[in-house]
């Protein structure tokens, strides 16, 4: 799958420039964290990477293949900011994806266990708690056996305990050599998970550096002020 390469990526909708001049290269099978203020364009960039939105300028390729090609997209999975629970049981949510990808439904149990939901298998998915729904959404995405997993603020509405459970799910996916691209506002979470950090501001990437560099001495002024607001 990797590397992901964007060249001069831009997107305008109705004469509004939402993304512009994004040059990005993701090479390692690690956790990439995307940070930035609300409205910086993080979710839209994720959609472009996932091939859901065709950029209006520049190019975006996964290992040389166009991001919007169906073969490339089938090797990726995404959990949206507000994950959709299919109106059926917890296990049926997993089975749906397994069937879709022609995989054995006997794998359901494995994915339920990975989400810590085996005891809620028969419960309607929509009756699960926020944290459980998020874990189910991630497990369902993993059931696609993706090479890349996109997560858009997966813990934005969760309490610290639920957040840690989601994070451990993400870490274990990453250890199975799934590339993780995660958007978050939570700097502490970024510190815990990130191998490299992409910082976005006003529709463009102002900085892409290793986590170590980013958290010790962010290069861009935007990132510096974002971090200092957090420290105070």
């Amino acid at each position, binding site marked *: 799958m990797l590397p992901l390469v964007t060249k001069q990526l831009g997107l305008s909708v109705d004469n509004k420039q939402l993304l512009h001049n994004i040059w990005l290269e993701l090479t390692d099978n690690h956790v990439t964290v995307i940070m930035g203020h609300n409205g910086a364009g993080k979710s839209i960039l994720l959609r472009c990477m*996932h091939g*859901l939105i065709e950029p209006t300028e520049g190019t975006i390729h996964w290992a040389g293949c166009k991001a919007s090609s*169906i073969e490339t*997209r*089938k090797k990726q*999975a*995404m959990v*949206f900011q507000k*994950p*959709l629970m*299919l*109106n*059926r049981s917890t296990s049926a949510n997993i089975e*749906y*994806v397994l069937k*879709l990808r022609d995989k054995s439904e006997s794998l359901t149990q494995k994915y339920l266990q990975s989400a810590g939901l085996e005891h809620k298998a028969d419960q*309607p998915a929509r009756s699960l708690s926020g944290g459980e729904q998020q874990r189910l959404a991630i497990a369902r995405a993993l059931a*696609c056996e993706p090479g890349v997993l996109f997560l858009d603020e997966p813990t934005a509405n969760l309490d610290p305990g639920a957040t840690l459970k989601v994070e451990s799910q993400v870490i274990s996916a990453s250890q199975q050599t799934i590339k993780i691209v995660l958007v978050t506002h939570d700097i502490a979470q970024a510190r815990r998970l990130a191998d490299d950090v992409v910082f976005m501001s006003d529709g463009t990437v102002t900085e892409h550096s290793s986590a170590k560099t980013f958290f010790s001495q962010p290069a861009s002024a935007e990132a510096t002020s974002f971090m200092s607001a957090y420290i105070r």
Partner: protein
Amino acid sequence: MSTFSQVFSEVGVLLSGPDPDLLEIVWLSLRVSLTATLAACAIGLPLGALLGIKNFPGKTIVTVLINTLMGMPPVVLGLIVYLMLSRSGPMGFLQLLYTPTAMIIAQFALVLPIVTALTRQQIEDNWSEYSDTMNSLCVPLTQCVRTLLWDSRISLLTTGLAGFSRAISEVGAVIIVGGNIDHLTRVMTTAIALETSKGDLPLALALGVVLLTIALAVNTLVFSSRTRIA
């Protein structure tokens, strides 16, 4: 002309023992309206879902057209079906006029726009939540339709119910294409209209009570199954 209380006591007598004529009428009503509704659902549910999901040029026109057909007066529709089925009509060779099949066809045409329009609205509302995930998973269109229909099953039950209520309660279409022939095409609503005009109020009223009871029973059934499949 009997007095008000006399009418009601006769209604009681009619409903207490199984009157074969009454049963025949009730059975035919149910058979015609249920068949018409099921057939309309078989086509209207997937069609409505497709309209709710897929964008295509002219979608607005199609939607407005179907929504308009929802309000089609049954007598007008009966007239159209009558012209189609009459001996000189395009489907006259089938010789279906004044048969229960003709009544099923008329009610099917009456119910189809209702089921399609309500389904489209329901599925379109849900699709705004589903589209991202379905696109992300690369779910093919036909399977999107099936997924949305199944996930909306509870509200779609009410859609089917609306269609059935329209079918069982209409009189204009069945009287034109069925002719209200005794022991052949007489259903509850046409019988009520006839008996009232003849002055046989007890029979008309008894049929009215049965009609309401069926409506109540069907609604109760649907409501209880809603909680079961939820």
